[in-house]
């Protein structure tokens, strides 16, 4: 492994000073024209989130070829597994940078993402977050971290207003809801967001009658569902992961309680492939998730879908929508900034990212831009309802594929 001693570094510094002053004199000649950008991709490839990590990786894999056509720049991917652990994330990030990564993308899990953001800041390497909701990531005053994903607060805000849209579109007015959430990093960020935002949204017709939090590792959710059933609430507001979502639906069926709907204001789980497989169409249908999604009518979404299907013929993009979409967009942001900056150096690259304004993108929402904290606040959510074993966009109407159904059929009324 190459090591740089103090003396080498001083010589290098002296040399660059001289070169730098010459550069001032003749910028057009000396300015380094870098030919390709090396992007380090940090994802959870092992551990509980491995499936999602693999999903995101697919979004990364299709990017270089597509971006070469779109922007005419060369992107080289360097993939690393951060094992869903904070220390591993940190050392992998350091290693990637030492091995030549000039920009980092990652990491789905909020804890490791925060650790990588620190490393990026220390090493002055731009870091584009593909998916991670913890608000603190863009609240630390970092100059090198950019997040193209809504923070928990934005997710909740969008999710709740879409909920109101559902009720309007279906002329429903439920009065009570029970809020259930998983007690992990993501779940509690979302719970805090709801506690802060919900009271302010006075136009919503419903009130929360109870909040039930359950353990992330819980294998048996019968007590939680029994409590929820006892509230006699009209519908369930749910922030969960995949496995607990499956468990909860099973318990609901066993305990014979059919709420008017299960609505997620911004969490994963109910739109993922395993959910449909585990529960079958009969019980997985009609669950609603208000999450960021790709716009099926957007040109870029359609070409990504075509490329994805060609490279992974066994898969459909709709089952990897967020993971592939945001990972692809993260690398696209890198390519776009690289093209404008013309260099792989950290500072100008970060500046270029800060100036990003991409109107042709694939996820629902306004153009990709970043505010002073490095956060993209223009990402919208779409209302996704499970129909016939597939996630279908039902709101907003300009992206909708079907009309929303609320209230949803009871468990025993559904055909086997």
């Amino acid at each position: 492994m190459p090591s740089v001693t103090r003396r080498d570094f001083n010589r290098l510094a002296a040399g660059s000073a001289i070169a730098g002053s010459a550069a001032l004199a003749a910028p057009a000649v000396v300015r380094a024209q870098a030919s390709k950008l090396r992007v380090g991709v940090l994802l959870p490839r092992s551990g509980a989130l491995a499936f999602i990590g693999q999903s995101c990786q697919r979004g990364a894999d299709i990017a270089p070829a597509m971006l070469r056509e779109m922007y005419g720049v060369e992107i080289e991917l360097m993939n690393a597994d951060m094992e869903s652990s904070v220390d591993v994330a940190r050392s992998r990030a350091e290693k990637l940078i030492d091995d030549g990564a000039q920009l980092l993308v990652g990491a789905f899990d909020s804890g490791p993402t925060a650790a990588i953001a620190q490393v990026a800041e220390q090493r002055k390497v731009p870091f584009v977050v593909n998916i991670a909701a913890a608000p603190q990531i863009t609240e630390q005053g970092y100059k090198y971290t950019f997040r193209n994903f809504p923070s928990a607060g934005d997710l909740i805000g969008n999710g709740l207003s879409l909920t109101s849209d559902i009720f309007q579109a279906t002329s429903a007015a439920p009065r009570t809801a029970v809020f259930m959430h998983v007690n992990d990093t993501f779940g509690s960020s979302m719970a805090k967001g709801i506690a802060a935002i919900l009271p302010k949204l006075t136009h919503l017709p419903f009130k929360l009658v109870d909040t039930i939090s359950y353990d992330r590792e819980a294998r048996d959710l019968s007590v939680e569902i029994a409590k929820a059933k006892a509230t006699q609430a009209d519908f369930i507001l749910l922030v969960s992961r995949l496995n607990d979502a499956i468990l909860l639906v099973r318990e609901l069926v066993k305990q014979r309680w059919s709420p008017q709907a299960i609505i997620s204001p911004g969490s994963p789980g109910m739109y993922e492939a395993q959910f449909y497989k585990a529960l079958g169409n009969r019980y997985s249908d009609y669950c609603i998730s208000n999450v960021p999604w790709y716009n099926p009518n957007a040109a870029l979404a359609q070409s990504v879908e075509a490329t994805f299907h060609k490279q992974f013929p066994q898969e459909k993009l709709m089952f990897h929508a967020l993971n592939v979409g945001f990972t692809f967009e993260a690398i696209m942001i890198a390519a776009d900034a690289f093209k404008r900056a013309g260099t792989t150096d950290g500072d100008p690259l970060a500046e270029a990212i800060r100036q990003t304004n991409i109107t042709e993108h694939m996820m629902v929402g306004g153009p990709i831009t970043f505010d002073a904290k490095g956060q993209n606040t223009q990402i919208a959510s779409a209302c996704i309802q499970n129909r016939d074993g597939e996630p279908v966009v039902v709101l907003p109407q300009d992206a909708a594929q079907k009309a929303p159904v609320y209230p949803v059929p009871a468990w025993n009324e559904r055909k086997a």
Partner: protein
Amino acid sequence: MQRSILALVVLLAVLLVLPFALDRYMLSVMILILYFAFVGQAWNVMMGFCGQLSLGHALYVGLGAYTSAALYQHFELIPWVGMIAAVLVCVAAASIIGWLAFRFGIGGTYFALLTIAFAEFTRIGFEHFDWVGGTAGFFLRVTQQSRMDVLNLRGDPIMFYYLALALAVAGFLLSAWLLRGRLGFYFRAIRDNEEAARAAGVNVFRYKMYAVQISGGMTALAGVFFAFYYNNLFPEQIFHISRSIEIILAPIIGGIGTLFGPVLGAAVLTLASEGINAALEALGHEIPGVKQILYGVALGLSIMFMPHGIWPGIARRLGFTRARDDSDA
């Protein structure tokens, strides 16, 4: 004896200048090694010297980390003051566990399980403790890392390297002092045969308490280091039983009850782990889980064939101890 002191001095000199020859990644690896060396030594005081098996040492790391972090974040107290608070909290916790266990004569496996229970109990408790973030995590405010701020422990990894080195050296010196002194003598008596020690007039309860308290207090400092190095704390990560297991691997592989064992164990394990990573990457095989399997097999083999750890054999070869000497060296 002279030989070993000379060797230690040379090692220390090398470690002092090492950062200037390393890249950032290797530096972060060295910091990990020194961290595990220190925390392994802390655990060794309780287990290696006194024979009390603790499988819940992550409790002290977590308590130390959260105490100092909360004082820094909520009350603006510098981590050096936070360290004192952290040590006090951990000594208190250790005292509770020790009192409950030793008063009622709980030892061996039961004691180990008791330590696990406390760690898990605390983990779940902290997951609901919103003042320090709960499961959403506790984030310390971070400033730009260009300036080194030793008072607030904000700065370059090089600063953390020297801090970890200082901790490891301090831990080593403390362990050596304990071992040679009266406390160490009583500890080892209790470890080797508790009944006989009691019969010989040793106040077993008191000395076991000391062992647990010292061990817990030392580990508190590791927790403070952890908090300020990583800047984010999550209960499910810091109190988790896998952390407790991580802590004990180094001293067991290196050599329980020896002075240098935990240090060597930390180096071997960390480097082996990184080495396996690099090898797997080079081979192009990215199958998750293979690294852990190799780890497990290596662990099983080493405990089967080298139950006293790696260090005693090496120490004998290098002439630091006479053959068949007291295994504590």
